[in-house]
């Protein structure tokens, strides 16, 4: 059963069309790699999924819920947008950790704020907070940073910061975790540790959408690959189909350039 279904998504900024006719679906537990040159619209697609951009047309379904319908783009109240975007988690290229909080607090902050909206928050405050912290510690362990709980972002390397950012996104239990070029801002020797964490999530069948320039990694980790060029899907298929037997000339050109 598909957990994510995107149909005919369209987005333009002013006169320039950034995404057109984007349709794909993703099953629960699958990883989708989105590849393409800079400026092809990959990041905008991720941002549409996370409500950081509002598409002009098309639909986005998560499970049986329509979270965006371009035919009926009623402006949603803030509360509803917040609820809907929590289906997704997003890991940014530039990590975007909150500098004034420790790694642990970066992970727990949003969870604590959300917990305040629970009706039983006042009675069970202590146990709720304790659970959140316990979970954050488990996540930090999972990304291999159990020794860095009390470190501030500036005390961590880029790779470590990105791993905290992954743990932070996971803490809210998103249905689908999105990555926007998660290693592009890292020194080459630090990309490995981040890719390893993402790989481990794929092995645990976390549903993921990964925008990346790491072709080798995309091939290893993904179940499906989407090649976008100039805002349209040029090719969509299994890693085998895209990387080994690309049908389209543009895909071949792109892969040649990227495999150096």
């Amino acid at each position: 059963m598909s957990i994510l279904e995107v149909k005919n998504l369209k987005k333009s900024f002013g006169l320039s069309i950034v995404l057109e006719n984007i349709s794909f679906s993703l099953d629960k537990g699958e990883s989708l790699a989105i590849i393409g040159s800079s400026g092809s619209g990959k990041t905008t697609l991720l941002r549409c999924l996370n409500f950081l951009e509002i598409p002009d047309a098309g639909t986005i379904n998560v499970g049986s819920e329509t979270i965006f319908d371009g035919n009926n783009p009623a402006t949603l109240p803030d509360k509803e947008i917040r609820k809907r975007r929590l289906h997704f988690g997003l890991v940014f290229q530039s990590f975007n950790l909150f500098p004034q909080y420790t790694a642990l607090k970066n992970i727990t902050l949003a969870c604590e704020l959300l917990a305040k909206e629970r009706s039983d928050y006042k009675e069970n405050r202590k146990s709720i907070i304790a659970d959140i912290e316990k979970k954050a510690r488990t996540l930090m362990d999972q990304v291999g940073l159990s020794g860095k709980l009390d470190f501030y972002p500036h005390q961590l390397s880029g790779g470590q910061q990105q791993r905290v950012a992954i743990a932070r996104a996971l803490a809210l239990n998103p249905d689908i975790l999105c990555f926007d070029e998660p290693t592009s801002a890292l020194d080459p020797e630090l990309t490995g540790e981040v890719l390893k964490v993402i790989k481990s999530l794929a092995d645990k069948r976390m549903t993921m959408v990964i925008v990346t320039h790491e072709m080798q990694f995309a091939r290893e980790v993904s179940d499906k690959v989407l090649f976008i060029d100039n805002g349209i899907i040029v090719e969509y298929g299994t890693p085998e189909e895209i990387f080994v037997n690309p049908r389209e000339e543009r895909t071949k050109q792109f892969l040649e350039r990227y495999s150096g």
Partner: protein
Amino acid sequence: MSFAVITQTLLEGFLITILIFIITLVFAIPLGLIVSFGSMSRIVPLRWLTRTFVWIIRGTPLILQVIIVFYGPGLIWGWTAFPRLEAVLIAFVINYAAYFSEIYRSGIESIPRGQYEAAQVLGMTKAQIFFKVILLQVIKRIVPPMANEIITLVKDTSLARVIAVREIIMEAEDFIKSAAIIWPLFYTGVFYLLFCGILTLLFNYLERRLSYFKV
């Protein structure tokens, strides 16, 4: 004229100085925030109105503003003038709110978009984003320029004498006329230096307290 009497008189003047200083800060710090929101508003007329206001206030001398607030209402509209001290306070609050608003604005605008977006995708409300994520980073960034501006305010209070508010400089100057001595004027420098010294220590402390993270 004994040292004790002169010290006593200068202290009285210095109390007025400190009063202007404190009242200005108490009102201009929050008012500046409102002005900064106006100058960052998405409503274009409001934004231009606010920015024009800030341009006029920052583009004209404070001394002129003090004079206008004191004499203006009476001479233009025939109103009863504000009491002298109140006139000074009104002019100072407006003037400093305009300067502070620009410091706030640059502080708020210097926070990367990614901080807002990261908080948004984590499901935070606008208020939570501002108070839990953005505010402390803004405060850290604006402490040095605010310190600068606040130390300038200490010395700007001396402009109050232009409408005969008896702050410390005016008190000291009177000794030139009444006793033909100039050293009380130099003596006022000690008050200013001590006060600014204390403020500098305070701001250094604040900067150290906020140095546990980097923005």
